[in-house]
């Protein structure tokens, strides 16, 4: 019954065409949600549809988004980093300290990035070299990094940043487009290309689906994960520069709780928390959605801590609702 002596059977490359696949994706659904919230917001508050207000609104998601891109790759590979907000605190503290000693903007940027990279390397060491679970390691470094900031700063704050430093968080590159949204866009494009168009990105997906299989296929799993942690730390450093520049000051409690928002953004973007799937465009749309939600709530004078209830609900809802749907559909079918 061997067909190999005859003409080999034809297996097509793909079953569905691109349009079909795109329309049925999580990203498409999210886009609809984003548009919906936009419309809702414009009815809810008269201040919403003002170009400059919208421009200000972008600050709600730009810093978190920068980290979310790196975090997305990390989560796809099957790991997680809960210490990102604490890395921001430490990087910000380091920059503040340097500013006290009269460092100029270029030096501050280098320090911010360097601290981010170092923290990322620290995490990477414990997870890839020592082989410890990233959840516990980053819960530990979450305390450690912020703890160091507390040791250095205690109750106080650093101010006194050079004027030119403010450009990152407060500057504009053209009309209403802020420096931060530009940085966000550049990072989005870079990560999008890396994840979807390079061998490295393919390796990340492979590792997330089956680390043993990936290893047996010649992928240097530990090296890839090490790099991913470094990148997450680096992006936290970038976010630290932007955030510190925007606030103009540093406290040890800076960015408290931001790791929750970042993880929510990633999960909302369609990245599977267990690893193996998800896309960058999804994270971009998720960033917009979260920005719209927080901005809208802010316009309605909802206090921050209540806003975080929405974020918490969003995080759980995004994962729970699809599963509920499947469960209900299965029940209906068997009934």
């Amino acid at each position, binding site marked *: 019954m061997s067909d190999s002596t005859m003409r080999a059977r034809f297996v097509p490359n793909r079953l569905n065409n691109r349009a079909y696949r795109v329309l049925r994706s999580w990203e498409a659904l999210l886009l609809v949600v984003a548009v919906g919230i936009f419309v809702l917001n414009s009815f809810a508050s008269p201040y919403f549809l003002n170009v400059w207000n919208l421009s200000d609104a972008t600050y709600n998601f730009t810093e978190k988004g920068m980290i979310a891109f790196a975090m997305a790759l990390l989560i796809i590979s099957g790991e997680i980093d809960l210490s990102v907000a604490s890395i921001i605190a430490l990087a910000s503290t380091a920059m503040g300290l340097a500013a006290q000693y009269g460092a100029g903007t270029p030096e501050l940027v280098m320090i911010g990035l360097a601290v981010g990279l170092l923290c990322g390397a620290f995490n990477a060491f414990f997870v890839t070299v020592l082989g410890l679970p990233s959840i516990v390691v980053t819960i530990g470094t979450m305390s450690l990094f912020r703890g160091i900031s507390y040791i250095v700063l205690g109750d106080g704050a650093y101010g006194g940043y050079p004027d030119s430093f403010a450009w990152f968080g407060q500057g504009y590159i053209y009309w209403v487009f802020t420096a931060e949204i530009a940085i966000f866009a550049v990072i989005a494009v870079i990560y999008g290309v890396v994840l979807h168009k390079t061998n*490295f990105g393919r390796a990340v997906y492979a590792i997330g689906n089956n680390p043993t299989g990936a290893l047996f296929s010649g992928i240097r799993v530990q090296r890839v994960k090490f790099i991913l942690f470094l990148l997450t730390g680096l992006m936290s450093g970038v976010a630290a520069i932007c955030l510190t520049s925007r606030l103009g000051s540093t406290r040890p409690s800076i960015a408290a709780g931001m790791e929750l928002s970042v993880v929510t953004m990633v999960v909302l973007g369609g990245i599977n928390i267990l690893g193996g799937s998800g896309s960058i465009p999804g994270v971009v749309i998720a960033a917009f959605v979260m920005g719209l939600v927080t901005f809208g709530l802010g316009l309605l004078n909802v206090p921050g801590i209540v806003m975080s209830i929405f974020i918490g609900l969003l995080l759980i809802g995004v994962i729970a609702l699809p599963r509920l749907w499947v469960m209900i559909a299965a029940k209906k079918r068997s009934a």
Partner: protein
Amino acid sequence: MANGIVYVPEDRGKQGTIIGLPIFQNITLPSLGRTSKSGFLRLAEEFKLAREYSERLDLRAASLDQDVGNLSGGNQQKVVIAKWLATQPQVIILDEPTKGIDIGSKAAVHEFMAELAAQGLSVIMVSSEIPEVIGMSDRVIVMRDGRIEAELEGDALSPETLVRHAAGISATLMEEA
């Protein structure tokens, strides 16, 4: 891998295929260096490579884009073999290649292995099925407790001698029985 020696593992699910990824990505994974350009993926090249080897192995699937987890055991094994063949190795080691596969696919795999050998590839098969070993091999190395016990070929190659060496029973005992 760098020396042209590839290994098709016994544990197909965990070590062989990457379930969650499509068939063509599974096949091209170790060969990305050749299909990609300066680190950037080229999907057209990948599909070409995947098609070439999946046709050689007569892969049964709905599309190359399909998740490899949807395939039968036999077809998954074909994907794994295709993956390693695509790297154009000189030596291919197959560890229990027909374990848990239906008869039809088993025969196909055997036929294929013979073809490979005929093409000049060195094929090393690890197996614990006596008929398979005797039927397929030019030369058999029997191992026991991690050590090479015997090397058999030609007339010396029979089920009895195989089992005897594998179990470590001496020839005199056998003749007495």
